[in-house]
């Protein structure tokens, strides 16, 4: 029985980690190539969820909604880039943090203004709303498996693009030494706009995929943003491979920690104290992990810059 429960938690952790990877992938590239801290990346995730909720309600189908939401998320990201971010690349990190923090304040309120403060619900597409039996008596929701599959597919596609194409080569070169790439005659601004647009769309895609299982509400991107930053800092800024490994690590540690910490502590403490301490420690685990990683490797596990 415990083994079955543990397996479910592992799958949940995997699913959570892959969602984090979708968000962190864009963030780490933008960070790596342009040395730009974009706190507004979390609201891209929120905007993706809201867009899919709005388009699904409008068209009546999740997949048509998704098909409309993805380009809309892309356009939204490019508009932000054109209007605001473009003026921040030459500024120091403090200015970037503040200006993008201003975008968060604005957009969190703006979605509340447009769609109201109450959470929106997006129905799971009918065909994928059931549960499958993985092993004896282990039922797992199909939609979560779909998220896992989508995350893995995007990860694979990104791996191929980044490691096997000319565009990917330029992105990797940009992450390790942007001025040099620019000096060799590559239009680094255009390259960055592409990376940025794709990153914004991936975050929007992550938001759209979790919309049916989470409530779509203002501020939903804030905590995810912090987790995505934890991921890219652990993975090493600018590294897709690092982001992938760190995202799975964070997803699993967080999910399993919340599940097992109270149980494990029960062997040491009395039950009520154990569950209380467990609930206190579990959410802190990933931050402890991050502090520990940075203590031993101050620039993450797989730094892109040498």
């Amino acid at each position: 029985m415990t083994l079955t429960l543990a397996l479910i938690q592992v799958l949940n952790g995997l699913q959570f980690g892959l969602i984090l990877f979708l968000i962190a992938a864009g963030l780490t590239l933008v960070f790596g190539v342009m040395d730009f801290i974009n706190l507004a990346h979390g609201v891209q995730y929120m905007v993706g969820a809201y867009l899919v909720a709005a388009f699904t309600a409008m068209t009546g189908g999740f997949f048509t909604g998704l098909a409309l939401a993805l380009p809309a998320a892309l356009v939204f990201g490019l508009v932000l880039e054109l209007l605001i971010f473009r003026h921040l690349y030459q500024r120091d990190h403090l200015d970037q943090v503040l200006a993008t923090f201003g975008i968060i304040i604005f957009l969190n309120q703006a979605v509340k203004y447009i769609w109201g403060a109450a959470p929106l619900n997006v129905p799971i597409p009918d065909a994928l709303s059931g549960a499958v039996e993985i092993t004896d008596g282990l039922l797992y929701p199909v939609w979560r498996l779909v998220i896992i599959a989508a995350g893995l597919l995007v990860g694979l596609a990104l791996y191929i693009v980044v490691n096997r194409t000319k565009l990917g080569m330029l992105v990797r070169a940009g992450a390790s030494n942007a001025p040099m790439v620019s000096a060799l005659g590559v239009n680094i601004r255009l390259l960055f706009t592409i990376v940025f647009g794709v990153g914004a769309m991936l975050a929007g895609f992550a938001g759209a995929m979790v919309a049916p299982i989470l409530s779509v509400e203002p501020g939903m991107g804030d905590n995810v943003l912090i987790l995505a930053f934890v991921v890219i800092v652990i993975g090493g800024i600018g590294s897709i491979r690092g982001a992938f490994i760190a995202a799975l690590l964070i997803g699993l540690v967080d999910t399993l920690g919340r599940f097992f910490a109270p149980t494990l502590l029960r062997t040491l403490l009395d039950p009520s104290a154990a569950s209380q301490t467990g609930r206190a420690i579990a959410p802190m685990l990933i931050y402890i992990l991050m502090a520990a990683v940075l203590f031993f490797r101050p620039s993450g596990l797989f730094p892109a810059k040498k």
Partner: protein
Amino acid sequence: MPDPASLDAAARAAPPRTRRVLILPMLIFACFALMPSATLFGPQSYVLAIVTRIMILALGAMSLDLLIGYGAMISFGHAAFVGLGAYSTAILASHGITDGFSQLAAVIVTAIIFALFTGAISLRTKGVYFIMITLAFGQMLFFLTTSLAAYGGDDGLTLAARSTFFGMAILKNDLAMYYIAFGILLGAYVLLRAVVASRFGRVLRGIRENPVRMEAIGFPPYRYQLTAYVIAGVIAGVSGFLLANQAEFVSPAYTTWQRSGELIFVLVLGGLGSLHGAILGAAAFTLLADILSHYTENWAMIFGPILILVVLFARGGINGLFGGKP
């Protein structure tokens, strides 16, 4: 031939520079000192409460100025210290220890321990990694406060009574609360002014400009930065003590990363690296939020763009408008 404009500028900037620098802060503190007597004719308690809030926010932002403005250490977890101070006060109060001096001592000791522990780890990293690791420690404290089931957990904790001094409930009086906040703000300003003017402050600014060179001439940055980190943490903790007393309530919301962002915003709005800029920023931030919230509940939609515009166009903040230099 010298340009007349530059001559003029040189003449204006030249003579008693130190005195000029202190005019604006002296004006600010005079305003705060006289404010309560001016409110005798108006809605006193409301104005007193809001100005007290401004001074408490200013105290937190000013301590952050020591880190960001003078030490180039962009801490994105400074609200953790405010929350630590507030929770230390409230937890002691909930156990019946309402003596203000004991509470302050507890606040200062916990802030020093937390600052030494987190600072020692954070300062091993640089740049973006420093921003992120201070953020991580802030989040840790946030989750710790939400899990304190005995002290309210997510819902926060209401203070049974404000702190007492010498056994007397002085702080019950809002005017006394005001002047105690004023006294602490003034004390912190004088202390920080002395710190940045001292040899230690010059070393800190040297490290801000070029850590490698400072190390080469015999000033290892780490211990100076850690000392500044502890000083800033203690002052922010004391602002938490005041905040808990003023609001008579503490909650995990005090320690969120958004609060840390707000502290940076206040500081940049007022002007980095001047100390009194933090006070100007706190006043502008609080009044703007208060006024806008009277007109529309969507004031954040106006606030966000203002923040972006300040960053893009108003370098030097409000202090810069008065001709102040960082």
